């Protein structure tokens, strides 16, 4: 116990100072204000943590500072929101995506084929590019004619914003279904399959070292069959699926939105690692520039697809109750009416923002902690943070673990994004602000420390929310009668100030390891 105290003295002092600060701060606050501000701090802290933890996992193992993490958080939010208000677009996208991926499920077979092809010669070098060219032409012909219910950003009535508004008022108008334009559905499907096969084969040809791979396993057959079934099934039953999604209870729809957003985030992250990050491990500066560039491109893409207006995703029914019996006065009361707010200490607490989000954050915190501490993957991650070469020398495919961790990190950010959509709302700048929050939180908590990411995020969230509250009620400066009201610019500045103070005292952050 004594050694524990001595080892963690600085940390204990810092936390004690912060606790004293909070206690002093609460002196002239109403209890209701204090509780609500505390809960809001938890909420922002939980969202920051979802960005920061993924960022820190990726940085710890891969040494990649993923500056696109904030943008991926934002993309997660927009994808979830779109599924929530326009599930028809999602149903339309399933078929082309599944068909395009199916070619890659046969990689084992392509590798086998590539090993048999002559290993050198001009034809061998050109063949993949000819394949890519044909695939690009095919896709350029098919995709504009393929029915995907996409909106026109400039046409307000058809944009997801309009549907979002309608949905928040309880109406869900069915958007017009898209149809095949001057192309037979069979030809479109065949074209997609061919281009997918050409792309997958081309990539295998470029990468293969001439070594014979395993022949096709039953596993690849199962994968391909599954993808084809999903793709063709979604095409055949498109209308029924769309109608089913629109009729779905908003709670279920929200759950589906969360799942789709997290999976597409993870898939995007994995794809990004394999294609863009992996070739640049020997050039860390280029990697940094690449992620910075990707964040700009991502933001512009979001602007191009969804436009600029700032919007809040309608909350699922579970958290949107109003009218009779609301606001709830007790938990049981909330369970019967699903009120959007609940009375705590005479203050109105928004259930989704201030209770649900911190709860999800806590669950994620604990589950990732268990994965890190108890699973083999976690063991490899912890070992790899220290010595990647040694992990590889044990016969472990570290590159695959890299991809998995990148996918996990981006998936966490996407989860943060889709959770943030109904609370702080969607905007083109939400990514940047949360990336900044996360970076500050990690600097405070310790860049590669998982508990540090949690503590730092919590401190950043709390400090921000208390500063916002003080902007309304003011801080009495002791021994004077001056009432200091922090202006809005002081809110972000205060977290930076906390970071500077912490870093001056503990250069590795509160829970960071000494190098």
């Amino acid at each position, binding site marked *: 116990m004594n050694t524990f105290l001595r080892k963690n003295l600085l940390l204990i002092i810092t936390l004690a100072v912060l606790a004293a600060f909070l206690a002093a701060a609460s002196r002239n606050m109403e209890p209701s204000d204090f509780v609500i501000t505390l809960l809001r701090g938890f909420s922002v802290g939980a969202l920051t943590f979802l960005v920061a933890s993924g960022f820190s996992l990726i940085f710890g193992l891969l040494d990649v500072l993923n500056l696109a993490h904030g943008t991926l958080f934002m993309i997660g939010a927009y994808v979830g929101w779109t599924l929530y208000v326009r599930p028809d677009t999602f149903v339309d996208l399933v078929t082309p995506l599944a068909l395009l991926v199916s070619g890659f499920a046969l990689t084992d077979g392509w590798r086998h084929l590539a090993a048999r092809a002559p290993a050198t010669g001009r034809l061998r070098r050109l063949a993949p590019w000819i394949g890519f060219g044909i695939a690009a032409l095919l896709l350029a012909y098919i995709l504009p004619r393929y029915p995907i219910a996409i909106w026109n950003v400039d046409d307000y009535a058809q944009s997801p914003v309009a549907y979002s508004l309608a949905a928040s008022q309880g109406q869900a108008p069915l958007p017009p279904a898209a149809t095949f334009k001057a192309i037979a559905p069979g030809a479109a499907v065949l074209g997609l399959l061919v281009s997918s096969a050409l792309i997958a084969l081309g990539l295998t040809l470029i990468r293969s*070292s001439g*070594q014979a791979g395993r022949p096709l396993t039953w596993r690849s057959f199962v994968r391909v069959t599954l993808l084809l079934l999903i793709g063709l099934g979604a095409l055949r039953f498109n209308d029924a699926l769309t109608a089913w999604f629109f009729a779905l209870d908003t709670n279920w729809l929200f759950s589906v939105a969360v799942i789709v957003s997290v999976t597409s985030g993870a898939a995007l992250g994995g794809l990004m690692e394999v294609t863009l990050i992996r070739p640049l491990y020997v050039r860390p500066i280029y990697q940094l520039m690449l992620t910075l560039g990707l964040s700009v491109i991502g933001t512009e893409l979001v602007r191009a697809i969804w436009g600029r207006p700032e919007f809040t995703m309608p909350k699922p029914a579970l958290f949107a109750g109003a009218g009779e019996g609301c606001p709830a006065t007790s938990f049981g009361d909330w369970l019967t009416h699903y009120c959007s707010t609940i009375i705590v200490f005479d203050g109105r607490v928004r259930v989704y923002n201030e209770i649900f989000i911190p709860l999800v954050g806590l669950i994620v915190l604990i589950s990732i902690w268990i994965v890190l501490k108890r699973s083999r993957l976690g063991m490899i991650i*912890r*070992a790899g943070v*220290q010595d990647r070469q040694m992990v*590889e*020398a*044990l*016969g472990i495919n570290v*590159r695959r673990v890299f991809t998995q961790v990148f996918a996990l990190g981006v998936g966490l950010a996407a989860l943060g994004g889709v959770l943030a959509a109904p609370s702080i709302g969607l905007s083109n700048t939400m990514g940047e602000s949360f990336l900044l929050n996360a970076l500050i939180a990690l600097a405070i908590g310790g860049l590669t420390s998982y508990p540090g990411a949690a503590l730092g995020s919590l401190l950043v969230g709390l400090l921000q929310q208390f500063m916002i509250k003080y902007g309304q009620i003011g801080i009495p400066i002791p021994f004077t009668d001056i009432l200091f009201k922090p202006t809005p610019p002081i809110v972000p500045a205060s977290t930076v100030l906390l970071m500077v103070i912490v870093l001056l005292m503990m250069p590795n952050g509160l829970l960071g390891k000494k190098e």
Partner: protein
Amino acid sequence: MRLAAAHPGFLTARDKVMTEHILDVQDIHTYIGQYHILQGVNVRVPKGGITALLGRNGAGKTTTLKSILGLTPPRQGSVVFDGQELRGLASFEIAALGIGFVPEHRAIFRELTVEENLRIAERRKGDYARKEAFIFSLFPDLQRLIGLSGGALSGGQQQMLAIARALVPDNRLLLIDEPSEGLAPVIIEHMMAAIRQLTAEATIVLVEQNFLVASQLAETYVIIEEGRSVQAGAMQELINDKATIRRYLGAA
């Protein structure tokens, strides 16, 4: 039997029967950055027993081990392990063929407990459970330390753990780099006894600065000098060859 295998015949014709060598490194050239570190290293390791890589500091012994494992992939030459060419394979694939690595400075995972340090080396489920008894019979100390984190161990304990970690999967070849470095004489004795016992399990390639240790352990040797292998043969002959020892290894 071992003596017969101990005369690999350095740089003999390539048509020599391969099967008696578990590892055959032919004329590898390795670059680190722009530096040409290995400029033609040949190492033929007979099956069973211990082969020592000798040479001065910075001669390229560690790089040779890392080149075998593909951690610093050679640009030229060939590395054949048990009849299979290793060049072009990734490190993890090479290791998974049955090669264990005990690196210089041990490279124990400090954040992992002793048990996790062993478990992470599992290649198939149950490796650790099968080898547990053998490992603890070699290094009884480790059993006592099982719950401690790797960073809390002393140098000698870390060395034992590093060797034990290489024993968890079924490895046919162990690459051990400087096992005696920075250890007290008593612990070196213990380590040597343990390494001798390992020859029943696997062939060992040993990099060792301390000639006394190397000469007592190994049956065959390869001397590496400035990135080239310059001499190889039976350890027994080298021990009596004071001139060679003075020339390539400094002291006798």
